[in-house]
């Protein structure tokens, strides 16, 4: 073997290449690889999250739909109930109104009858008095015969 100063030269080359690798090759490559690893991991996580969110959203949509359906059913049944009530109420109201009108008419008729009776009674009394006057040819003292007239009046009533 032939050992000489080439050994030192080779050691220098070696040192130079180690320095180059340590300074300019390894750190940027390592950074690029780590960044890529992180990006891929983040991307996968984001995809997984998106899928999960989609599933959640679909679930929520279903729930909302279900809820809305129930609400609609409820509203419809309420409306049916309410319309029934309204019809019933209107019926009752109309019935009551009719009765009221009828009773008012009856009362008025009765009043009219009474008033007519009253007038008749008065007229009959005075007619009777006038008749009696004619018959007796003498004036009857209305005051002294008030009791008798009253009795007569009540008999006519």
């Amino acid at each position, binding site marked *: 073997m032939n050992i000489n100063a080439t050994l030192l030269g*080779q050691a220098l*080359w070696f040192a130079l290449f*180690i320095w180059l690798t340590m300074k300019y090759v390894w750190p940027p*490559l390592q950074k*690029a690889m780590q960044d890529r690893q992180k990006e891929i991991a983040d991307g996968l996580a984001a995809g997984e999250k998106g899928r999960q969110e989609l599933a959640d959203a679909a679930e929520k949509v279903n729930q909302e739909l279900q809820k809305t359906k129930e609400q609609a059913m409820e509203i419809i049944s309420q409306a049916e109930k309410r319309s029934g009530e309204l019809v019933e109420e209107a019926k009752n109201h109309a019935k009551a109104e009719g009765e009221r009108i009828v009773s008012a008419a009856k009362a008025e008729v009765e009043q009219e009858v009474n008033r007519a009776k009253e007038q008749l009674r008065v007229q009959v009394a005075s007619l009777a008095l006038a008749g009696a006057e004619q018959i007796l040819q003498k004036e009857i003292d209305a005051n002294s015969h008030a009791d008798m007239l009253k009795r007569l009046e009540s008999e006519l009533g």
Partner: protein
Amino acid sequence: MATAGPQTSGEYISHHLQNLHVGEGFWSLHLDTLIVSGLLGLIAFGAMMLLARKASSGIPSGAQNCVEMIVSVVNDQVKDTFHAKSGLVTPLAITIFVWVFLMNAMDLIPVDFLPLAASSAGVEYLKVVPTTDPNLTFGMSIAVFFIMIAMNLKFKGVRGLLKEALTVPFGKYLFPINLLFRIIEDLAKPISLALRLFGNMYAGEMVFILLAVWMGASYWWVPAGAMLSLGWALFHILIITLQAFVFMMLTVVYMSMAAENH
């Protein structure tokens, strides 16, 4: 063979094992090792640097994807083995794996391509695979050794390191033996790292050279030799990757031993 002619087999082989060098004695340089390994490193790490600079966390381009794959495989190995916190160990492991793999891969270029091209350009010797030069493997493993010591000091401090060297594994009363064991153990690490890589690659290269020599002997041998060369090259793809991985993995293990208290 194009190099046939006045060359004998012995000359052919030793020509292939000769580095292009300048200078004499210890202060000489193997230019081919330095230039090939340096160029490979500059191209590979330069390209990775450019890629890393515009790397984004979005969809990665093909090249970025490829680099990220290599880098994250290395990083996973480091994370499995090295549990302390350090900004150095992963880049160190990436550097070793990528660089050693590329230098080993030069072995897959047929043995005569580049030396012939070089000799026609006037360069007499060229040893193409830098990892068959022990200077390179020792250069790397000794650098790893010093980083390991620095790592020891950083995580355990001088006192912690001394205490560990003196009392592990036999307790404080046998401290000379402990220290001796520790020194042998630590020295064995860079030596085994360097010799393992060097030996594997040198032997692999040798097989290619011998097959080339065999094919050079007669045209009759060319089909069989070509098949064997192809087979060996296919098998070698496994070896070069494995050796790069082993060098990297052992370095990480040494670093984790340095950083953790046993």
